[in-house]
């Protein structure tokens, strides 16, 4: 660095670099800047002492203030809970049948239910509650309900689950008919079941087998039985598919869905909110006693 000299116009020493006639002045950092820098360093060090910071062999330093991110989260959660408490209390004391008359509460419940649904229910029923036919999870948007679709029936289903042990369980089982029918009888039966919903022409031989074996649960015309959770067979909605093969499998070796009893895991208010949400998806039924399922002929009339 040979060419150090003092710059005439500014009176500042140059650092000695020169490039194309341009020289760099040796201007030191301003004092205030340095002090700010020293202060930030000191602040940073103090911070690592006060808060969890340094990684050690098995765990990090805990800090002098006793602050933890989990502790902060817990605080924020309890604050949020407290904020929701008023609404939750109101929902808790309001009867389901009265809820639909209270717009504000209904909206709160629906929003809370939507959130709870996203945490607890989407794994099976899908994020849009559209279900999954391959795996046999029911669509909750449509107008077909295995165990009933008014608010109290939905609440009961959510609380006690399906095919879960417990005093108030929703329990039913479809027998496996494996080995009971010969191949021709089976084909005729499947044919008849499909004819109930107009998928095939009527099959007299199948109808006999059906009346003998199936009608007790599924009804003479396949109208189902909500007491038993026996699906309607004379509508267009098939939980596990409407193909002959799917129906044959379901007769020989039926799959039966199960649903956890959420009453054991969720508080009653959450269950209530979930009920409101599921009911609001578009398929929810009124509290009036459901009339018997209309015969298929009626559906024909609409076509």
């Amino acid at each position: 660095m040979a060419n150090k000299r003092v710059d005439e116009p500014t009176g500042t020493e140059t650092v000695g670099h020169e490039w194309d006639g341009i020289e760099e002045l040796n201007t030191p950092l301003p004092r205030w800047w340095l002090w700010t820098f020293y202060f930030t360093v000191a602040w940073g060090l103090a911070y690592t002492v006060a808060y969890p910071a340094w990684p050690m062999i098995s765990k990090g330093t805990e800090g002098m203030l006793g602050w933890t991110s989990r502790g902060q989260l817990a605080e924020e959660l309890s604050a949020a809970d407290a904020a929701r408490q008023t609404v939750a209390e109101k929902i808790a004391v309001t009867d389901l049948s009265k809820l639909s008359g209270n717009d504000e509460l209904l909206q709160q419940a629906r929003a809370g239910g939507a959130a709870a649904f996203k945490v607890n229910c989407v794994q099976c029923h899908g994020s849009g509650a559209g279900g999954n036919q391959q795996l046999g999870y029911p669509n909750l948007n449509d107008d077909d309900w295995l165990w009933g679709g008014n608010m109290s029936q939905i609440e009961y289903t959510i609380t006690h689950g399906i095919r879960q042990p417990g005093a108030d369980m929703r329990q039913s089982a479809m027998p496996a008919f494996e080995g009971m029918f010969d191949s021709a009888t089976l084909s005729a039966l499947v044919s008849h079941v499909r004819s109930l919903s107009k998928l095939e022409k009527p099959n007299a031989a199948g109808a006999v087998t059906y009346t003998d074996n199936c009608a007790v649960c599924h009804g003479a015309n396949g109208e189902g039985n909500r007491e038993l959770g026996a699906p309607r067979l004379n509508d267009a909605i098939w939980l596990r598919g409407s193909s002959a093969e799917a129906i044959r499998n379901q007769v020989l070796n039926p799959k039966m869905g199960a649903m956890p009893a959420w009453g054991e895991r969720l508080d009653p208010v959450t269950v209530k909110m979930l009920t409101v949400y599921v009911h609001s998806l578009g398929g929810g039924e009124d509290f009036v006693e459901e009339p018997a399922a209309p015969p298929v002929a009626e559906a024909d009339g609409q076509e």
Partner: protein
Amino acid sequence: MAKSSPQPAQLYEPRKQVHNKRIDGPFRRFKWFVMAVTLTIYYGTPWIRWDRGPYAPDQAVLVDLANRRFYMFGIEIWPQEFYFVAGLLIMAGIGLFLVTSAVGRAWCGYACPQTVWTDLFQHVDRFVDGDRNARMRLDAAPWTWGKVLRRGFKWTIYLIIGFWTGGAWIMYFADAPTLVYDFWRGEAAPIAYITVAVLTLTTVTLGGFMREQVCIYMCPWPRIQTAMMDEHSLLVTYKDWRGEPRGSLKKAEKNPDAFGDCIDCMQCVQVCPTGIDIREGPQIGCITCALCIDACDRVMKDIGRPRGLIDYATLEGSKREAAGGEARPAWKELLRMRTLVYLGIWGSIGFALLFALGARSHVDLGVSPDRNPPFMLLSDGSVRNSYTLKLRNMTQAPRDMTLTLEGLEGARFWTDSIPIEDAARSITIRVPADATQTVRAYVAAPVGTSQQDFDFVLSTGGERPESDTNTTRFTAPGE
């Protein structure tokens, strides 16, 4: 820290405090007029009342951020109509082009808020400290109690003006009388106090202390303006071919032929609010307020020479005059292709906005189909789609709106508040005044319906029937 030279060269010119002298004349009076009009509009507008009935505020101009409405006299703008504001901003931009290409920096000289408030503060200076000479003496004087009191008094007036300015600003965002009441009781929103504090500070700093420095160093507009101007733009010009060489009145009387009309009296410099010398030619500091024209004309009259040594002129005209010709009249310079094109664009946007304003509908329908699941089968085999509809009523009274399906043969719909048994092709919904109603609609089409487009039509009856149509898609199983 090696500093050998005791007095390093200054790289920047230090600021010279501008003490502009009082002047009267046609341009000064015009400036007074513009100042009175603009300040009256700014401070007064929020207090104008406008009856909109029981469902809307009665303030004539109100930016209601909380409810997302913008009221301007008889016009109410919703967020989705923000293009009106965008259009006005574009008009303001092109208006600046138009004014600049025609008369140079007239905006800067008369209407710019910085100019108006600087002028206001300069009058305060004159009121408290006296005119130019008195102010210069006081500036140079030591800090006696008298000076401290005087300065304290002046800065208090600055603060009051600043506070008023910030105070008037927040009035545009809330009901003015209520806000004033709440403000003094300490019950207004924190943002109101913060805004007033910030605007008081900036007004006092920019208008009271920085003044012409804002125009010269901070404002980008003078730099852009050079692109807007050409040799036909009217600018404040010193006619050097007439004025030079300068000589004092005494010298010029002794030897009239050796000197021009400029007697170097410096009046043009002393009255200038930005402290420039116009005789040095067009420059960035000149805001074309034309106070120097007033000053020069007065001197010319006193010494019996023709007015207009400093005058509005075009570069082109100046050249012609210098060569001994006649400058074209100003109105001919104003009506030329460039200004006419700007005027045309400006006017077309204005007409388009007016047309849109007259033709806009006060109902609006937004439709978004639910995509999860896209469709579902009902037990009778029909297919159901769900839609979220937004029904907007932009009038000040509740309205019954009829929602109808068009297309999609055989389909019926119901909503989240109307049971499936009442499904129909046409449903009437009451929408509250000045509100958006969100409705979930379930549309079921018979077995065999294929994927297709259809319309939701929203229509209102009453004295002024209006409607809005929204085309959407019906999704069905199959290909």
